[in-house]
């Protein structure tokens, strides 16, 4: 008899992928301006480190919160005891207001339709447990966040079938790709339970167009058991036009007849990990108008509630409307500036990025640097970038991209200085390696590549959680 469960011994958690494996190299040799100037610069981490000072200054002005106090009186024991899976009402109210504000107050959210979870990781898994099971599949446009393989599939038994998007139309979802994915799933004997999109997109950094929304709505409208899940965790990182359109806005704009068909099959996932840069606090949320989903998800949230201490801190912070307004706008400004820096820096090296208006990263086109139009060549290039250039970036294959040569490069998790250093390195690499080694070492590369993959997949990886 097998000692552990099948889930414990399979690889569906996806952590053997190169996306997570690049960490090891970084951890072994991390860049430090002074102590290790030749180390690897971390550009694979979609963290928002640009606006902590705003949070810190808020804390300095609000000392009560820090000492478990409200109006000077200790509420420690109430917080210590508070484990109600409905969540702290004050926090939920503040959170829905924050979400509405990010959407320009074009939509409002009802706190009673919100379920708090331990991060978006937990929110996505919980939603899967509610709407799907083994034998079911969700369609996801590629490229997509590598962690979805773990979050949506691992313990739920649900499958992901890709909607293949390509650079030919800037990776937009097309009707034919959607149909093709649906057929692919059917061929595999899977029941398609819906579509999950990340909007703004990780790794693309773009927001969904209205045209794509129309396609998605049309697709699920008459398929009565299909859901549309919109992971909007990057909604606050939209820094330039086109402005962000939430799926909730789309619902609101629909005719009552059309809306009636799908309102209870559309769900939103949110988190404070990207917009506020607080991934450590594990704050995720599911929003749905479907009462049964909310009821089931609420019970399931018992497996990953948000610490009451954290709910209380953030309730206070997000209730401060002056603060949130200033934060949202300043944060976006800084992201825009930083993205510009990256795009320009890469441009100087003859490298283009997909035009983006959101996110903490750019989707970078390095196809012209590939030795061949293959994923092996992409891996070869990636290794060069990690070891020779000293940048940990994420290869497109780890995001299930259908075309080799694309890389996700993060820009918001480092200082401006460090970004400059990274850009210099890229420039040097490109100028040095024009016309350089391709193909000659492919034989020995293939061998060392497979050794490397084998080695990496058998280790326990010290991989920090991220997107």
């Amino acid at each position, binding site marked *: 008899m097998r000692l552990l469960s*099948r889930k414990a011994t399979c690889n569906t958690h996806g952590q053997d992928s190169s996306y997570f494996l690049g960490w090891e190299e970084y951890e072994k040799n991390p860049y430090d301006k002074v102590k290790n100037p030749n180390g690897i610069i971390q550009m694979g981490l979609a963290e928002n480190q640009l606006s902590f000072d705003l949070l810190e200054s808020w804390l300095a002005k609000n000392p009560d919160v820090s000492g478990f106090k409200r109006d000077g009186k200790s509420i420690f*024991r109430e*917080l210590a005891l508070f484990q109600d899976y409905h969540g702290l*009402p004050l926090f939920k*109210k503040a959170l829905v207001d924050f979400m509405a504000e990010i959407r320009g107050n074009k939509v409002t959210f009802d706190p009673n339709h919100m379920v708090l979870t331990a991060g978006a990781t937990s929110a996505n898994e919980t939603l899967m*447990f509610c709407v799907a099971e083994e034998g079911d599949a969700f369609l996801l446009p590629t490229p997509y966040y590598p962690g979805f393989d773990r979050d949506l599939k691992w313990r739920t038994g649900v499958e992901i079938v890709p909607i293949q998007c390509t650079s030919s139309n800037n990776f937009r979802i097309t009707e034919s790709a959607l149909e093709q994915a649906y057929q692919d799933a059917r061929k595999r004997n899977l029941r398609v339970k819906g579509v999950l999109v990340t909007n703004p997109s990780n790794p693309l950094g773009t927001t969904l167009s209205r045209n794509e929304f129309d396609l998605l709505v049309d697709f699920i409208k008459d398929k009565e058991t299909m859901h549309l899940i919109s992971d909007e965790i990057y909604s606050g990182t939209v820094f330039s036009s086109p402005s962000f359109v939430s799926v909730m806005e789309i619902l609101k704009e629909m005719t009552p007849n059309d809306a009636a068909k799908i309102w209870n099959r559309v769900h939103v996932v949110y988190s404070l990990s990207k917009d506020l840069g607080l991934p450590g606090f594990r704050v995720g949320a599911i929003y749905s108008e479907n009462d*049964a989903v909310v009821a089931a998800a609420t019970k399931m949230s018992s497996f990953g509630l948000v*610490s009451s201490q954290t709910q209380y801190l953030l309730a206070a912070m997000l209730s401060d409307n002056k603060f949130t307004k200033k934060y949202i706008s300043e944060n976006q400004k800084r992201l825009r500036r930083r993205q510009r820096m990256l795009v320009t820096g890469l441009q100087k090296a003859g490298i283009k990025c997909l035009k983006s208006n959101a996110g903490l990263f750019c989707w970078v086109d390095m196809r012209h640097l590939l030795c061949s139009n293959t994923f092996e060549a992409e891996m070869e290039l990636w290794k060069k970038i990690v070891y020779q250039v000293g940048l940990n970036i994420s290869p497109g294959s780890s995001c299930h991209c259908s075309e080799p040569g694309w890389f996700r490069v993060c820009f918001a998790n480092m200082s401006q200085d460090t970004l400059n250093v990274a850009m210099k390195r890229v420039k040097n690499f490109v100028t040095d390696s024009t016309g350089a080694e391709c193909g000659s070492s492919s034989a020995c590369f293939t061998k060392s590549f497979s050794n490397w993959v084998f080695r990496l997949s058998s280790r326990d990886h010290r991989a920090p959680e991220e997107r």
Partner: protein
Amino acid sequence: MGHQRLLSKIATNDKHGENSPYFDGWKAYDRNPFHPTKNPQGVIQMGLAENQLCFDLIEEWIRNNSKASICTPEGVHLFRDIANFQDYHGLPQFRKGVANFMSKARGGRVKYDPERILMSGGATGANELIMFCLADPADAFMVPTPYYPAFVRDLGWRTGVQLIPVHCDSSNNFKITREALEEAYREAKQNNINVKGLIITNPSNPLGTTLDKETLKSLVRFINEKNIHLVCDEIYAATAFTTPRFVSISEVMLEMECKKELIHIIYSLSKDMGLPGFRVGIVYSYNDDVVSCGRKMSSFGLVSSQTQHFLASLLSDEDFIDRYLEISKRRLAKRHSFFTKGLETVNIACLPSNSGLFCWMNLRRLLKEKTFEGEMKLWRVIINEVKLNVSPGSSFNCSEPGWFRVCFANMDDETVEVALKRIRAFVGRETNNGKRVELKRWKSINTNKLRLSFNSRRFDENVMSPHSPMPHSPLVRAT
């Protein structure tokens, strides 16, 4: 169109256990909660295994250690690093603190390796996580009765694991016998059920007793022979307040041949430190593969880094922890003694217990019929007439009717007195039908002088916040 096909089976079945009739007790409390001055006739919450006895110690510590918070001027320099920290390994100092605390709660007789400590969303998350690691859907875990009702949800709801009860009864004070284990195992096998392990709660909820070394050893021998896992839920470890002392499975492992890779511990700070709101669940496994896989799974329920940081500081204060454990033990012992002696005056016996936040009360002689229907009838009377929310034994899957779990650590002294008064009055009515009852005199309290003044300390409205479907915390009222 029904929800059946739109949602999953898991989302629409009953295995979350919340449709059970026992929530009527909660509802009665929520509709009419006791308050010493505003609602002295309300229902007293005695169904909530919370530890509210030592908050003052932690509050004092907080006042003296402002750097433990990342929000204070003294601690904010760490804010960004902590806020950013989502590594599923957890903060090293947090793990070290937990390992140290676990060791101290076991008198230093065992040491724990911080590298084996995995985080999860409370013990609720921990119990589910270990099942996901050890068992496949339709596999089974054996669990001695009576057991914590939410095990059905935690161990089986989303995992698909089934529970096989191992029956224990009062004939031997609910000890787990080899015979009971063998019988449960045999029956499972006969029904083609694949048994993956045994899960025990030690100290026991709802019994409030600890397992003796001999029993523990026999359990280890059993799982070794059958080559199945042993999961030990030790979340009440530091609530052991009197002899016999608590013996952890880790101690037993030091004294006998065993397959380490089969043994796993579930822990939490919700009971020992009274911090259920902070969601600190721990899985400690002696199996390397489980540690590795479990660590990845912990992504679904990491402890907030803000909380990890705070607790790392608190738990590394050795003097404070030593003092805390000692005082907590003393206060629990005192409360337990006061409560059980109070019950004895009307000849209500509890299972002799040395731990936990509750008593296992024997009300068999008050049953009109010695059946579970009789138990439910008595329970409704207790809720509606005596106005105490207690938990009937059947909700713990007890094999004998008439037992009730009564919590005593989630209220202040005065409320305990009120509860006892009501119980005594009720039992008096039930057992004597008008005959005069001689009340035993006892030293501390005279019912005529029951104090109901609360000027000495601030009494918040509803200090108790039940973990019920209907929230009733002041933090809810605040909005």
